[in-house]
């Protein structure tokens, strides 16, 4: 095998530009595959971190009657959880209401949270520090859609537990910027005590966010959703993106491998006399097959080297500077940072190298098998069709 690689290397180096053209095409596929997967992995990683920081925490303990995907469950989806069972949990109460920014009516969810909580990155401390009578914080996108800014006052209308409408003025004490749409669009955050008082839902909670020390114990009337479960939609989306990405790099790989296959077929046809000479000089047919296969496989090694030469600086730069998506993900209901930083794991890099090398070797072997059936005399005469 050493001999096959030795000879293959000499032949490829001797072939000059043709070798580097093939290696170039394959290296492009190689770099794009690593970049695209790195981007998806980076997005996935950031989305997980952002999701945990802004919404998921270490899981949610939900009232049995509450379904996050069913707005009709908000009215009755709350209950009282015993104080001793709230250790390492931050309670959140959700109610429905309307705000009237600039005279317009906007349906909103009113979320009450402990202003002293440290689990989520929501700047709830602003609810304590504000001098306003009823301070609220909202997300950047909510502020944009409602056309309100810091310090603005809004009329808030809601129904208490008896169904009685009430209204008051709330003040925007803070506008936060989050990549997580579930804590931003169509909602305002206020102190949970304030909300409980307003709605007469004393000690009631819709769900509780767990911190890293929380250990779940089955509690009647409450249902625990783990971090992984909460991330399922995002994970599904990322997996879908990976599949669609695999189509892209499937096409790129096919182009690269087709170039190698084509070169090999042509090479075997054009180099018949050379093949005959190798056999006449004492190589076995399978040694020649191995040499041609090694030549094809070596394209992928050259592609790796070439890809590393121009790919590493580009990928490095993109990993350091990130790629701006302008927060478009939040508008689509998915977690995407303003800038996504691709992550290139060793598994991704070595996995891709392995796939490229194996595929190139297989497509090289396919035409090279013909040599094993070649008559050396016909080959010497260049008469093999």
């Amino acid at each position, binding site marked *: 095998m050493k001999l096959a690689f030795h000879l293959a290397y000499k032949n490829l180096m*001797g072939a000059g530009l043709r070798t580097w053209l093939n290696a170039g095409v394959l290296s492009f596929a190689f770099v794009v595959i690593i970049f695209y997967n790195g981007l998806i992995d980076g997005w996935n990683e950031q989305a997980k971190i952002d999701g945990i920081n802004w919404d998921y925490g270490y899981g949610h303990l939900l009232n049995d009657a509450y379904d996050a995907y069913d707005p009709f469950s908000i009215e009755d989806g709350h209950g009282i959880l015993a104080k001793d069972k709230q250790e390492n949990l931050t309670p959140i109460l959700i109610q429905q209401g309307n705000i009237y920014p600039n005279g317009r009516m906007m349906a909103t969810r009113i979320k009450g949270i402990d202003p002293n909580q440290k689990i989520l990155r929501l700047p709830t401390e602003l609810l304590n520090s504000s001098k306003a009578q009823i301070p609220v914080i909202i997300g950047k996108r909510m502020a944009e859609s409602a056309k309100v800014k810091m310090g603005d006052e809004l009329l808030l209308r809601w129904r208490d537990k008896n169904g009685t409408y009430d209204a008051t003025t709330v003040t925007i004490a803070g506008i936060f910027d989050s990549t997580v749409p579930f804590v931003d669009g169509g909602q305002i955050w206020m102190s949970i005590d304030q909300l409980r008082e307003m709605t007469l839902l004393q000690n009631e909670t819709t769900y509780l966010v767990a911190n890293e020390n929380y250990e779940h114990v089955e509690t009647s009337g409450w249902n625990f959703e783990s971090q992984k479960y909460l991330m399922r939609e995002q994970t599904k989306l990322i997996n879908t993106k990976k599949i669609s990405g695999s189509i892209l790099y499937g096409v790129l790989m096919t182009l690269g491998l087709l170039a190698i296959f084509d070169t090999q077929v042509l090479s075997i046809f054009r180099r018949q006399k050379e093949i005959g000479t190798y*056999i006449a000089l004492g190589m076995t047919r399978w*040694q020649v097959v191995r040499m041609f296969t090694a030549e094809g496989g070596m394209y992928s090694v050259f592609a790796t080297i070439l890809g590393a030469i121009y790919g590493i600086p580009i990928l490095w730069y993109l990993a350091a500077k990130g790629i701006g998506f302008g927060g478009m993900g939040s508008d689509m209901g998915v977690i995407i940072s303003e800038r996504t930083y691709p992550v290139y794991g060793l598994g991704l890099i070595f996995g891709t190298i392995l796939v490229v090398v194996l595929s190139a070797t297989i497509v090289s072997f396919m035409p090279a098998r013909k040599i094993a059936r070649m008559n050396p005399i016909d080959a*010497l005469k260049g008469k093999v069709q």
Partner: protein
Amino acid sequence: MSEKIIITENLVKRFPVGDGEFTALNNINLSFEKGEFSGIIGPSGSGKTTLLNIIGSLDSPTEGSATVLGHRISDLSHKESAFLRNMHIGFIFQVYNLLPVYTVFENVEFALILQKRSATERKKAVMQALEWVGLENMADKKPSKLSGGEGQRVAIARAMVKRPELVLADEPTANLDAKNAHAILKTMKTLNKELNTTFLFSTHDEKVMDYLNRLVRLEDGEVDKDDIVQPKYMV
């Protein structure tokens, strides 16, 4: 008594042509001794190259046998015949068949790489072979930079570098001018004398015949004449 290194007995070679068969060699009974400088001559299509290919274990007889250096060709596997060629037989072709991406040195070195010889041993042997053919100063040149005569001399060095018992030369002077042809033949004759290597030519070139000690004439696949001759040119 001299050692017979090639023996053919009732050798027949047929090739399929359309629905029938073409008999390229018919009932060939020949033997060649070690150190001979012989030629198979005859017109085109007489079966010279076919016989040479069978002796070189690139092909096998349809009937009868060919025994080369004690090996019955039809009994050899691909691997065994490759080993026989690699270790004991050198080939010289009409169009040199040098490997285009290798230098002169690497072309000559190739056979020794196949024999898994050490780098030091290879270098010594290659330089010696290039010296035999007077190309020691062209070791780094690519075949495309060589003249026809130089190319064929590289081919001789490549065939001789492993010091084979037998060298098969198929029309080695067909692409050379008279001056180069004589130079090549003198080189081969010298190597034949110095190393006692058996040379078997396939040729219809009069210049080659002038150097040979034995002429086996084939006519339509059969031995027409087998004469020991006095070569015109001695070395």
